């Protein structure tokens, strides 16, 4: 009897704590949604109502009038994101193969260097990256953002690739080696097809991280409005003296939809990869 009441009390109190926690996590998202749904004619009052009174969807159309280049910004962010993902894969897969399958003197130092490289952030290298990209004539091009962006996603991509390869039994590859295959044909023919979940995880991880880092990198690498990623593009409207919050929040919601949906689809793989790599 006593036991079942304590269970009930626990159940209820945990539920309350979980709801409080979830509310904290959802506050800004709720803010964005109610602002985007509030008719501009409603006018701002303080305190603002907690539930929108004059619901409208017109802000989602006005978003494209306010931020006329919104489709272009989104396309740019997409190109930068996919470029960073592809680059990370092209580099992380062979590097992961090298670190997971071969024994050599530089292996262990390289592993630790990869972990160390993961600690760098764009802010530390903004000026030299700008100077290098300028020397190559790449300022205001897709290449500058993709090359500079990949540097910060390659380390963890490599780590994910190593830890996934370690879970694939090596026997198949050894048999192929006996049959006269070389490591250069084993990687594309045998290893890569077996790595599909890891490929997806790396692609999405790099895409999302790349998408997030676009803002800081674009501060120095992109000044041409037509080349801006969506975060920087929207920031221009955000830093004006009078901000149209309704359409701006609608624009933010529209442009966060892609990364959120992608992440929800593959979150399982990413967490698996991260935990098997960095924790166990």
């Amino acid at each position, binding site marked *: 009897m006593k036991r079942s009441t304590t269970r009930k009390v626990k159940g209820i109190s945990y539920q309350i704590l*979980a709801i409080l926690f979830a509310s904290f996590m959802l506050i*800004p998202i709720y803010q*964005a949604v109610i602002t985007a749904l509030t008719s501009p004619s409603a006018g701002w009052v303080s305190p603002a109502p907690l539930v929108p009174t004059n619901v409208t969807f017109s802000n989602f159309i006005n978003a494209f009038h306010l931020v006329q280049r919104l489709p272009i910004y989104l396309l740019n962010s997409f190109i930068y994101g996919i470029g960073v993902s592809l680059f990370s894969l092209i*580099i992380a897969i062979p590097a992961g193969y090298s670190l997971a399958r071969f024994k050599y003197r530089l292996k262990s130092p390289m592993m630790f260097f990869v*972990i160390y*490289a993961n600690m760098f*952030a764009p802010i530390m290298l903004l000026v030299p990256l*700008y100077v290098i990209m300028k020397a190559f004539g790449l300022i205001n091009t897709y290449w500058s953002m993709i090359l500079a962006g990949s540097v910060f996603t390659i380390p963890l991509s490599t780590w994910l690739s190593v830890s996934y390869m370690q879970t694939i039994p090596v026997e198949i590859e050894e048999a192929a080696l006996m049959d006269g295959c070389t490591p250069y044909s084993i990687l594309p023919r045998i290893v890569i097809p077996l790595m599909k979940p890891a490929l997806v995880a790396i692609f999405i991880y790099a895409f999302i991280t790349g998408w997030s880092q676009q803002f800081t990198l674009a501060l120095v690498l992109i000044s041409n409005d037509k080349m801006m990623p969506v975060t920087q593009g929207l920031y221009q409207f*955000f830093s004006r003296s009078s901000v149209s919050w309704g359409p701006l929040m609608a624009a933010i919601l529209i442009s966060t939809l892609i990364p959120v949906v992608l992440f929800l689809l593959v979150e399982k793989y990413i967490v698996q990869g991260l935990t098997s790599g960095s924790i166990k």
Partner: protein
Amino acid sequence: MKAKRSTPYIFLLPLLIAFGLFLIYPLGKVVGDSFYKFSFLNPSHKIWVGGANYSWLFTFKLYNPFFSYFIGALLRTILWVGGSVGLKIFLGLGGALLLNSEFLKGKKVYRTLLIIPWSIPWAMSAMIWYWTLNGQFGLINSIFLHLHIINEPIAFLGYPTSAFISTFIVDAWIGLPFMVIMLLSGLQTIPKHLYEAATIDGAGDFTKFAKITLPMIKPVLLTVSLLSLVWTFNSFAPIWILTRGGPVTATTTLPIAIYNTSFRYLTFGGVGKASAMTIFQVLLVTSVSLIYIKTLKGAES
């Protein structure tokens, strides 16, 4: 696997080239630049100044009679990072324990709700938070006003102390989902029979937490906290969007100071001085990384 000696290096080559060109070379450039005086606007016009940029770090004062601009930023960074990482660990562990509890219903829903903030680009989250913290119409003010916790709206980002606290809470909000999900996967590896045995022995919830959960989760907690520590030291976009380091210098952490000195305060700053600051930022991050790598090595053996 048996192969020629050069084979593993050939597979590693693309990585080495990418790191060499866009990580090690720029890092070397930062070291070199820290001995010159020059502006971002004209990077080819460099004047050798020796160690002057470094002594400037400790002598140049801005609105603060006690500490130099750099030392102030450094101390502020430590406090700010402490606040943010402290919140991330405390709430992260709390959230993970809740999601791992057998008493909680609707775990899948909570998990999904947690993933959504994780995938929003940081700059977007910061822009939404800026509006949420708005001194008149923001949701935080309207919740507090409706609950009668306050009578007058507060301009959270307008005062030094509240801006400092608000920015690190936003940063913690951004980093929390990662913490919860990682710690949760750590908690899930603890064998259930340990708790069952403890229950039979009559152990209470707190004893179970202190004697089973905490020791079992310690390696995960340590690695995740160290990772989070480095990322938080590097946090730039959230503060930049919320306050640009202000009011005055209240939220000017080291990354913000580096950015402002390179690109905004051209009258007193410049790339050379910012590069000298970056060296300290790199040293700070390197020392945490060394601890991190040591922990990983310890876990391996």
